């Protein structure tokens, strides 16, 4: 049984322009200790998927259906439809989250000591000193020098990379089983990104957490992930082990995405193979394949085929793809 099991998750937003289908039926499992990358471009639903079951989407004008079952010490719980109070007991304890922009995720008026201690006190009935010691221990672990002194500092007194380290320390305060990292290094410079990715690898090995890494950067994914889910237009379009996905991408979107990144190891001046067209509007997306309008292999299929939605099916062990090109392949369980 998986640690976290997402089934048929759907998220709709009611907007003045119409219903936005941000996530349309996403299912996946997260195993203990693994790093699952969720890759996609803006609007693909990669962030909303995770915000939905963490209860971090606005309550009004939002419809969330499906189930997200998490294994906790008290048995299995479904995070969808859980009361705010119950969810609060899980958030920050069993499942913790770090965000892209640590400046807006940390409170500017409170010292980081106050914020770290609060994160611990919220889930543990212990003396403040205990929480304080824990905060110092974790700040040291994530590489903040003089943690004792730095507890009194405010977020603006840290650099971007250091703030991200503080965020990671805060996420680790209660030994979470799942860490959701939403674009954790996107706002950072490459040299700092390398430091933070190394830190995440080290603490994952130490704490034996499962990590969901949400990113658009296929370079980061190559170095960090065990498995990759590719999302497009609010749907999961391909899922495979990291080696399998880069060596043998199946869905034309994944192929196009891998082709369109400039690679430093392949010399200069070669023309990039861009994917033509624009990502789809999520308003009235319809039931067909969301990528059809930009797909270069559409003509290989019978006319009108791509207006019906392909199923996500396994074409080899652990390699799932949602594309009509693979309809005739034997489904592998």
């Amino acid at each position, binding site marked *: 049984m998986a640690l976290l099991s997402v089934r048929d998750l759907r998220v709709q937003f009611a907007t003045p322009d119409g219903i936005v289908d941000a996530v349309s039926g996403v299912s996946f499992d997260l195993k203990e200790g693994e790093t699952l990358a969720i890759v996609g471009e803006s609007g693909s639903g990669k962030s909303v998927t995770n915000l939905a079951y963490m209860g971090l989407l606005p309550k009004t004008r939002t419809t969330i259906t499906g189930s997200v079952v998490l294994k906790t010490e008290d048995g299995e719980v479904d995070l969808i439809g859980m009361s705010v109070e119950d969810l609060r007991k899980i958030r920050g304890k069993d499942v913790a989250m770090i965000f892209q922009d640590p400046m807006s995720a940390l409170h500017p008026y409170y010292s980081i000591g106050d914020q770290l201690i609060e994160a611990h006190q919220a889930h543990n009935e212990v003396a403040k000193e205990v929480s304080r010691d824990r905060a110092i221990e974790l700040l040291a672990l994530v590489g903040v020098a003089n943690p004792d002194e730095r507890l009194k500092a405010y977020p603006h007194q840290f650099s971007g990379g250091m703030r991200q380290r503080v965020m990671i320390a805060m996420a680790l305060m209660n030994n979470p089983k799942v860490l959701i990292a939403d674009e954790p290094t996107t706002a950072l*410079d*490459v040299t700092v990104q*390398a430091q933070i990715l*190394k830190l995440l690898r080290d603490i994952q090995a130490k704490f034996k957490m499962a990590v969901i890494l949400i990113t*658009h950067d296929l*370079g980061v*994914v190559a*170095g960090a992930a065990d498995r990759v889910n590719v999302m497009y237009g609010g749907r999961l379009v391909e899922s495979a082990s990291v080696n399998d996905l880069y060596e043998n991408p199946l869905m034309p979107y994944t192929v196009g995405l891998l082709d369109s990144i400039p690679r430093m190891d392949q010399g200069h001046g070669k*023309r990039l193979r*861009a994917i033509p067209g624009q990502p789809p509007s999520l308003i009235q997306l319809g039931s067909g394949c969301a990528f059809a309008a930009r797909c270069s292999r559409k003509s290989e299929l019978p006319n009108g085929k791509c207006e019906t939605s392909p199923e996500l099916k396994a074409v080899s062990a652990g390699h799932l793809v949602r594309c009509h090109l693979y309809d005739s392949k034997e489904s592998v369980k």
Partner: protein
Amino acid sequence: MNQPLLEVTNLEKFFPVAGSGIFSRERGTNKAVNGISFTLNEGETLGLVGESGCGKSTAGRTILKLYDPTSGSIKFEGEEISGYSHSKMKPLRTKMQMIFQDPQSSLNPRQSVGAIIGASFEVHNIKPEEGVKRAVQELLERVGLNAEHYDRYPHEFSGGQRQRIGIARAIALKPKFIVCDEPVSALDVSIQAQVVNLLTDIRDDFGMSYLFIAHDLSVVQHISDRVGVMYLGKIMEIAPTDSIYSTPHHPYTKALLSAVPIPDPKLERKREQIVLTGELPSPMNPPTGCVFSTRCWKAQAKCFEVEPILQKVGKAEVACHFPE
């Protein structure tokens, strides 16, 4: 040899930093660009890379005289422009243009696309033969949009399309030189590739030169003929693209390149990474000697005392006492 299109010598741009309180005096100076020199030939693209705060954007803006340089010389087509006033710069602006990172904030939301691009002709009182409207429509088609987009407003376009509008505006007067300041950083990868290809095509069609400023080293490698690496307001290394990426000579260049992840799991996991320790020093108070000395693993006593100057090493020019 022909004279270079652009020649920058010892360019400096310092910003005063105010103390706290309204009446306090200056507390210091932020040495954003601290003495850089380079040349750019016609039809050439020079990439300028570095981490945030290294002064690469300030350098680009100062060269276009959007900021007044503190000192140093900027020669455009042999003409010394560093002391030029706003009005004296105006005729030159038809030849030098800029493309910005954020097409959302660099396009006026209250103006139609036609008005935004057409303004270039109006400001300089240039009357295209075919009329402004037709000229703008041709530009729109050239950058991959439609002539019908003429009457639309920026908010009706996606990020990638808005960047195309910004490009159309920049190339409207057929400039010789464009400063591209992080032109694709705000775009998704699939769209980024489209815009990089477009920038390459129009450069080759019009024979333009780019100063291509970006933090993404793979994109810069792709589009540039030469690359300059900046750190704390100074150029650490400048070299032809193929040479700098295959054999970096400056320790900082080496560290920077080693930090860029490669989108291939097998290569990515076995390659050697140099993880820099420490933080970027403040540009208000840069280290003495070599500015990189505080984070360099090769630093010796000399590095903390004597500032290295750019010297020829192989095909590159490197500012380091102990180049690789």
